[in-house]
């Protein structure tokens, strides 16, 4: 599954060496506990790149979410003005005219 893995115990024992290896090679290392992957150690520049990608991908994520949710809620009968008058439906205030 992951090529570079270490146990938590190894991580504790050789942390400086492991950080240096990741920085030098750029290869992420996955920390496992009882053979289950827990977290990955990656270079800061790779983390920044991932963050940028996540930001750029945020509209696509929203579109996917919308399509999936619309399918999930297709049998629900929500008020047509729920978005516009959500205050009313949540707090039972006066609906907007």
């Amino acid at each position, binding site marked *: 599954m992951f090529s570079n893995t270490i146990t938590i115990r190894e991580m504790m024992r050789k942390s400086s060496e492991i950080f240096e290896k990741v920085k030098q090679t750029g290869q992420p290392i996955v920390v496992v506990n009882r053979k289950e992957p827990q977290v990955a150690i990656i270079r800061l520049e790779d983390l920044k790149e991932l963050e940028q990608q*996540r930001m750029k991908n945020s*509209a696509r994520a*929203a*579109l996917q979410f*919308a399509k999936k949710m619309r399918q999930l809620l297709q049998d629900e009968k929500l008020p047509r*003005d729920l978005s516009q008058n959500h205050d009313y439906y949540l707090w039972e205030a006066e609906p907007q005219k």
Partner: protein
Amino acid sequence: MGSRAAKVTMEANRNILVVDTDAFIAYVDEDDAHAEKTITILEACVEQEMILLYPTTVIVEAVTTLQRRLRKPFLAQKIVDEVKAQQFLIEPVTQEIIETAATLFRPDGSKHNTLFDAVVATIAKKTNARAVFSFDAWYKTQGLSLASDVF
């Protein structure tokens, strides 16, 4: 963790949209009055690689509204699970945001413009967002643009 928006440059911030509760609700219901326009805006956002930020309060308000109206309330949990899975960019509502929002909040004015809206406006101003993804014209009175006017 600091503000996500603070990590991008001012120029890049012009790609930011701050999503409000009404748009979020229109995401999920295809029969909503704003459903079609919402998808059109989202498609334009994908094309232009816009960054969509969600104030914490928007997620809470939208999910709670939906929870109250859904015939099957367990679907609210599904919505929360999917929000987590999609890893939306959630903007924390800090004390500083609340303090600034309180200066925009006029409870003696319209009952429809709440502290929730003031929080959205504050985050949009703070991040120099291109627009607020909402259909509420109140944001224009705060000097902000609406996504529906931009796309």
